[in-house]
């Protein structure tokens, strides 16, 4: 979406890129506006897949398929699991709008602005010809730069994963009492009964 201003001569790749960008944008907007929780999650999947398409057109082959594998195949599945563990009714949910949606919109736009300006500034002078041979996007190139020059971030990442997993365990641990699940579920069940 940000590179549309780099539009010099429109080629097929550029047109496709814009189309996929628009698709991603539309799916992202639908994610936050649709009134059904699971449908929102599905639009999020479409948006993540659209990003993968963008990476692919930018010749970042490895990153594109990693995007599909991790975000579409794992993170969104986690999201769906989370929805189904709590509640994912078929049909519309009325209380999806929260009171601070304007604050959320401001935060979202500000984040987008920061990202666009930073990334745009970083790659403004870099030119990329999609017709040239794909060299920098392959797994080999990624492996070389990752394991030769970016070692410390890579090792730190393992600590991040460790922290994430410990967090998940703490959230879902069972050794506090035998019926933690039931205790957690009860207020929700009561709330749903009250609605119905």
């Amino acid at each position, binding site marked *: 979406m940000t590179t549309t201003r780099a539009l010099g001569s429109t080629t097929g790749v550029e047109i496709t890129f814009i189309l996929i960008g628009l698709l991603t944008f539309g799916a992202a907007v639908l994610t936050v506006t649709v009134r059904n929780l699971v449908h929102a999650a599905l639009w999020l999947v479409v948006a993540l897949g659209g990003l993968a398409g963008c990476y692919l057109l930018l010749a970042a082959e490895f990153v594109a398929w990693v995007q599909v594998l*991790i975000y579409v195949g794992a993170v969104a599945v*986690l999201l769906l699991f989370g929805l189904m563990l709590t509640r*994912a009714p078929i049909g519309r949910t009325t209380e999806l709008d929260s009171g601070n949606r304007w604050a959320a919109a401001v935060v979202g736009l500000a984040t987008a602005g920061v990202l666009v300006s930073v990334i745009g500034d970083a790659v403004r002078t870099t030119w990329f010809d999609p017709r040239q041979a794909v060299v920098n996007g392959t797994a080999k190139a990624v*492996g070389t730069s*990752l*394991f030769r020059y970016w070692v410390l971030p890579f090792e730190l990442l393992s600590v991040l994963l*460790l922290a*994430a997993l410990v967090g998940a*365990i703490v959230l*879902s641990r069972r050794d506090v009492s035998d019926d933690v699940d039931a205790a957690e579920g009860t207020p929700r069940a009561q709330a749903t009964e009250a609605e119905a």
Partner: protein
Amino acid sequence: MNSYAPILVLGGLAAGFAIFSVVSGMLTGPKRYNRAKLEAYECGIEPTPQPVGGGRFPVKYYLTAMLFIIFDIEIVFLYPWAVRFDSLGWFGLVEMVFFILTVFVAYGYVWRRGGLEWD
């Protein structure tokens, strides 16, 4: 990008086949309304109310998905490492051993906390 043309064509053919099947299946089959037939199947008894809205599933599933993400990310790093393995030498081996060990600590923690028990 030329390598992706056959994949697109194959995907198009598969999509065409699947959509054609579903649409023609809707047209060719009979349609006889029957209230009981359209209810959720529960071996002939009256369907119990949906567990979906407020239904309680074991939180284990969530933990499994979380573990899956962690290991999936590890695998995603293992793949480029494996492809470049021969040119990374001892250095590559050692850094990956550290990475795997850190993830293994997390794994061992989950194991000891009973996160891998299904009963």
